């Protein structure tokens, strides 16, 4: 209670002194050091001086309600809370939260209660993690550091801070020891198999476990997340509506990741905005998902509503890149063939053949192609024909229900190959998100802009702005070559050309 009151004072006054009062236990010496660091930074960081205090304060206003009275004090507390399968179950829960309809109510309740059961770290424990990662305590590494987290992350928590050069940042701090305990628990495949058989009965459990293990172990190393975010931030630099906060390299390590703080409206509030705004936001999300997939070959595996900030006019900030799946050209090819054969060529037999070659459908299944198309077409409904389509909540539920429809004759012969497990989940998450906005657009026309095998013309004002951005990116790169020196830079343009070649009409005519 006390701490919350003080945090409110901080927001109201914006004064570093109030932060220091909140940290009274840290002692006078550190307070003075922190203040002098702030003064030093104020001279060097004029460029951010305008927005940083406002963003810092806004992040406090949007603070999640976390039970500080239950805060984890030691690494042993963390192990007791998240060790022995609980952290793993939470990750399963996180992945399963997009497939609610496939879960029994009791399993859903268990998984969501488990997430509620994890308290934040105490200020001291979080500071200890920062110190072990950066070699100095947070109040020296940053000009301002809010010891109270602003949000829970699945295996860590987010603190707001201002860097020594004056940037307002979000610092995600991982629970200490969590990587080790989750890694050990993921080795108990027999137990995981039991759990998942119950959690997602209609799924390829072993494929799911393999994918889950891979994703979770990647997510535990925040350097991976930072690299993903850097990759996408670089690709979308200058995009008219898509914004991705920059990673602060020197303040990012395996256990903490620091990125620029962004302000905006949460999904729940967007849902109260006029329909036109919701449509624009949905269009941006749609463009982001499929541009990322087709051009960066990356898919953000966490389309949770909490991972977006909305700014109006369709501008969206995308957060949290802990669960990004990268696709090889070979993995992407069947997906494109499927959409192309069904939606563009209108060739059901070719569609079926591509399903079979990708492993989605057992070859030679005693099913008519009509049945197969009828079963799966619902996933493509919004893009099979041109024209405005509204994605209703009913439609997105129907998609999810179809996915888990064990009575369909197709189900016995269908499966999700391992590399697509996450894609399918996210796809369903995307439908859920767009359905939640009741978004209307000519999705087919937008898809045609993005499909490498069509490269359709801009179909909306946003599409025009995006086309201009794309043109500027290409000329910018040709003229300067400046961006090519950036680490992890891969905008996929070479890959894009390769894919376009694969899908050129001459070649597909010879497809078996």
């Amino acid at each position, binding site marked *: 209670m006390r701490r919350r009151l003080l945090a409110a004072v901080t927001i109201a006054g914006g004064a570093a002194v109030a932060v220091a009062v909140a940290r009274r236990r840290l002692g006078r010496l550190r307070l003075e050091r922190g203040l002098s660091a702030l003064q030093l930074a104020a001279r060097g960081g004029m460029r951010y001086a305008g927005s940083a205090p406002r963003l810092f304060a806004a992040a406090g206003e949007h603070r999640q309600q976390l039970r500080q*009275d239950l805060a984890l004090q030691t690494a042993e507390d963390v192990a007791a809370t998240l060790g022995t399968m609980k952290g793993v179950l939470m990750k399963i829960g996180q992945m399963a939260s997009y497939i609610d309809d496939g879960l029994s109510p009791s399993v859903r309740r268990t998984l969501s209660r488990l997430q509620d059961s994890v308290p934040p770290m105490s200020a001291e424990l979080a500071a200890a993690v920062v110190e072990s990662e950066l070699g100095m305590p947070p109040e020296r590494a940053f000009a301002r550091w809010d010891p109270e987290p602003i949000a829970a992350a699945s295996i860590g928590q987010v603190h707001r801070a201002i860097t020594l050069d004056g940037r307002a940042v979000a610092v995600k701090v991982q629970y200490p020891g969590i990587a080790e305990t989750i890694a050990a628990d993921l080795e108990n495949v027999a137990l995981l198999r039991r759990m998942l058989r119950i959690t997602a009965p209609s799924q390829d459990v072993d494929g799911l476990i393999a994918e889950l293990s891979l994703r979770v172990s990647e997510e535990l190393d925040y350097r991976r997340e930072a690299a993903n975010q850097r990759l996408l931030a670089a690709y979308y630099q200058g995009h008219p509506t898509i914004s991705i906060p920059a990673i602060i390299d020197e303040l990012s390590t395996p256990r903490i990741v620091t990125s620029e703080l962004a302000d905006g409206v949460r999904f729940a509030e967007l849902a109260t905005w006029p329909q036109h705004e919701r449509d624009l936001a949905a269009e941006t999300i749609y463009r982001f998902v499929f541009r990322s997939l087709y051009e960066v070959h990356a898919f953000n595996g966490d389309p949770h509503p909490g991972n977006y900030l909305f700014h109006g006019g369709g501008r969206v900030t995308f957060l949290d890149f802990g669960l990004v799946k990268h696709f090889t050209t070979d993995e992407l090819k069947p997906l494109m063939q499927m959409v192309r054969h069904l939606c563009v060529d209108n060739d059901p037999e070719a569609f079926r053949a591509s399903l079979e070659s990708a492993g989605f459908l057992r070859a030679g299944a005693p099913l008519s192609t009509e049945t197969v198309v009828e079963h799966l077409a619902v996933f493509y409904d919004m893009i099979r024909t041109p024209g405005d389509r509204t994605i209703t909540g009913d439609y997105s539920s129907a998609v999810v229900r179809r996915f888990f429809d064990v009575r369909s004759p197709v189900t016995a012969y269908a499966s999700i190959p391992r590399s697509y497990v996450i894609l399918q989940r996210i796809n369903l998450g995307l439908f859920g998100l767009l359905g939640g906005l009741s978004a209307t657009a000519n999705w087919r026309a937008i898809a045609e802009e993005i499909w490498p095998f069509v490269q359709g013309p801009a179909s909306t004002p946003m599409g025009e702005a995006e086309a201009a951005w794309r043109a500027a990116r290409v000329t910018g790169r040709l003229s300067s070559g400046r961006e090519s020196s950036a680490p992890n830079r891969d905008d996929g343009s070479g890959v894009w050309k390769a894919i376009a070649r694969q899908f050129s009409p001459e070649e597909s005519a010879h497809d078996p």
Partner: protein
Amino acid sequence: MRPAEPGRMPEATQVTTDPYAAATGLVARSAAAYASGVPEAPADDGFFGPGSVTWRMSADLAAPIAGLRALLLQALHPLAMAGVDEHSGWREDPVGRLAATSAYVSVISFGDKAAAERAAGRVRGIHQRIRGVDRVTGRPYAASDPALLLWVHAALVESALAARRIFGTPLSDGDSDGYVAEMVVAAELVGVPRTQIPASVAGLQRYISSVLPELRCTPAASESMAYLLDPPGLPEDIAEIWQDVRDGAIAALPEWALAMYGYGPPGPLTPGRRTEIRQALGVLDAVFIGEPGVLEARQRLTSRMRAARIA
């Protein structure tokens, strides 16, 4: 580590009367029982309180193993077993009987003094009416007999320590002694004279050794063990996890108890198997947290313990 079939079944299995009812709702009812004992607005800290070893041990992962092991030990006293078997509705509603015990332990541990004394008074009242003659030994028994109550108490306390030592977070020697000493009042509440109650780990072990000659596996004990180790009617997922809990409880039993139940000496518990059992306990705990009221009850306790630590 998988137990062999209980080999030497005691004679006179035909004494069996009724079959056991299915263990439907075991987790849900245990959870409700636990949550019911943790007060929202306690008048005082009760007989233990937020600074006690008892509270600190309460959320330990190994609790289900402690409980199962305690039941397996308690059942080896023929007179205690006879009282339960013939009077408590144990066969008709085993889950209800276990839930009642869980609720009792919860309110004694976490309730305020008035709630704990009320619950203890009720139990003493019930015990007054339970008397009989054990069909196996021919000895008369009374549930209010301090000797029987003390055995039940000692089995629970010693099992809590053993389960945590092997599968949970072990206590220091000082805390172990502290726990046994704290628990004295629990035995007093059901009617055991204070002077008879062990107040240290060494005292507890001496007491258990002194009772050993009276212990044996009667048919009722054997049947109730068979039921507890593989309760029919559990949902499939819980049943699979229960196999690990069962293995854990058996691994934690003393050799003499294993011998009475017809098991050979336990093989060594490998670190890998221990980890697997702990992981199963973790899943079970997650399921437990998912039941209504459990998380809130735990948070009430944690919050009070944190406050006590800071004060």
